């Protein structure tokens, strides 16, 4: 059978199909809608014929009906608030906020209600809500349509924060989020929607809170997530040619945070770089670096280095965007600096 055909056996004996991340996300949503009548999608523009600005939900309203795949007005607070109300009433809503910057409008519902309802009710309420959103940075959208804001959410007890980097993980992690009984924010990235890869067919779930070592290496640990994993792998490939073996750890979820996998890798290599496209200052990488520093101070051969966006808005002009955002080249430089320390 040729690669890319449906039903191809993967290395682990699991049947896979070659999908883009966009298609893998759609498959996860379709699978959840088919498997559980309480699953409900709501958000702006997601019903057909539009099918969502990034076409992730294309076809779903046609298959499952507009009762369950709902277009909403441009009302971010009401989208997330209604999802909270539906979630505490026995449904599993998947709300979509088109672009991550728009989450600022819905933060009250997410931070004050979704995140805390279980706790404040003493366990009487559950909020099995998934909030999908996408980072649009890197395509010249400017300062209000380019932000990478997951650190805001990781800071809130009660939320889970999940960021896929591959089509297979996109399907598996999103399915796990939908069937999780706590509120999950699922952060997609416009730069990854077109990336392709083998995706297990059928009900595929990747447990939340388990990082993956996506490239083994003995010299330097490079911790990343989401879009940055792609740059990390490119950097590792380039550095391998220089004789530096980089171990790339994909966090996959920030909350729950898999400190065990990160620390095990860091203890082996004793040199660590943590990278993300979000602003470096007070970003999630600072938490990762601090945990490594606290646990492995005596083991490390070099200070943990962080790579992230500069502390400036993302300009619209390509030159401004490039000046602020990290790249494979900045990861290479950071790894070299700790490898030689």
């Amino acid at each position: 059978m040729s690669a890319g055909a449906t039903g191809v056996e993967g290395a682990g004996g699991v049947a896979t199909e070659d999908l883009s991340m966009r298609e893998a996300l759609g498959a996860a949503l379709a699978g959840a809608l088919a498997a559980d009548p309480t699953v409900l999608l709501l958000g702006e523009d997601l019903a057909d014929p539009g099918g969502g600005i990034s076409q992730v939900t294309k076809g779903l309203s046609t298959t499952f009906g507009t009762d369950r795949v709902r277009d909403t007005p441009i009302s971010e607070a009401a989208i997330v608030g209604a999802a909270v109300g539906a979630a505490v009433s026995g449904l599993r809503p998947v709300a979509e906020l088109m672009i991550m910057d728009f989450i600022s409008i819905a933060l009250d519902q997410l931070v004050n209600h979704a995140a805390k309802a279980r706790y404040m009710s003493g366990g009487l309420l559950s909020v099995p809500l998934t909030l999908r959103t996408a980072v649009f940075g890197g395509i010249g959208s400017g300062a209000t349509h380019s932000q990478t804001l997951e650190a805001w959410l990781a800071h809130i007890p009660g939320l889970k924060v999940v960021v896929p980097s591959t089509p297979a993980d996109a399907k598996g992690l999103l399915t796990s989020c939908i069937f999780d009984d706590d509120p999950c924010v699922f952060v997609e990235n416009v730069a990854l929607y077109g990336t392709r890869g083998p995706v297990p067919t059928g009900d595929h779930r990747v447990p939340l809170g388990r990082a993956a070592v996506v490239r083994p290496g003995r010299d330097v640990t490079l911790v990343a997530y989401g879009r940055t994993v792609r740059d990390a792998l490119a950097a590792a490939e380039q550095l391998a040619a220089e004789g530096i073996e980089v171990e790339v750890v994909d966090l996959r979820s920030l909350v729950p945070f898999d400190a065990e996998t990160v620390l095990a890798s860091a203890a082996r290599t004793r040199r660590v770089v943590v990278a993300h496209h979000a602003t470096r200052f007070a970003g999630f990488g600072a938490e990762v670096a601090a945990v490594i520093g606290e646990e492995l101070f005596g083991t490390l051969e070099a200070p943990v280095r962080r790579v992230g966006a500069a502390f400036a808005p993302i300009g619209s002009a390509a030159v401004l965007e490039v000046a602020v955002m990290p790249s494979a080249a900045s990861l290479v430089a950071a790894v070299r600096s700790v490898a030689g320390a």
Partner: protein
Amino acid sequence: MTAPSDDRRRGMYGTMARIRACDERIRRGLSGGEFACTYWPATGQEAIAAALGAVLRTDDQLVTTYRGLHDQLAKGAPLGPVVAEVLTRASGVNAGKGGSMHISHPPSGVVLSTGIVGSGLPIAVGVALALQLQGTDRVAVASFGDGATGTGSFHEAVNLAALWRLPVVFLCQDNRYAEMTPAAHGQPVAHVADRAPSYGIPGEVVDGNDPDATCTALGAAVARARVGGGPTLLECTTFRLWGHYFGDAMRYIPAEELEAARRDEPVGRYRATLAADGVLDAEAAAAVDQAARDEVEAAFAAALADDPPDAGAAFTDVYLDAGEAVR
């Protein structure tokens, strides 16, 4: 919708007496230093709650606010555990984690109470969406104050509910002040209900200190929602007699306005109405009042004897899996 029966009217008086007794007991305990807790008094708004309790079924769903004691008790939340929650005891209805601001009791249909002004409306819309999709005839009520109508959440929620014709009643307890600011400083329309036509839904203003009128108006709104007639914006005019928070000196309320509001307070007014109508005489009303005070006193005695939560409870209910809380 017909006027409430004599039995229902006596029931509503009993609800009002119970709310008043509980509110007074909390304020007495706070004033005397017997206990400390946060509290946003509901005295003056008992008639709206009584109508709410009379009209809604147990399986109807309520989302209310931090000033919610009256609504919660009227909807059927159990007095003892609610009092224990106000006093943040482990035996509280929410294990002492919610406090007076965040009471939740799903078995009685009190879904939750929000501490952020306006935020309960979108949540109630989601509750109503679930009720609609589940194919039930149950109804959701969002209870909120006039101050909430200044939020974007109010507009987004009413708009969405109207668009989807959801079984929800937007119950505005118009108590004339948004925290410390008169309603007229925050809204360019005379009445909250004036906004209803812009969403294409019915709006009505009713005397919220009159349980009978409120019961009739709310009953009509709930009946409409139950049969697929969509949302209603019902404004119940009332007055918040003890200010925004316990201890509020209310310097911002003109003395004559406060005096007039006190003369119009709903419990005494309804007692007089029921006596004049021959439904409940003074002696019987006094017995209802005393029974309410006794029940409340017993609830406080029990709650005050209860322990606060264990410190370890700080780390449970963060996630379903307690192991996922990061210490």
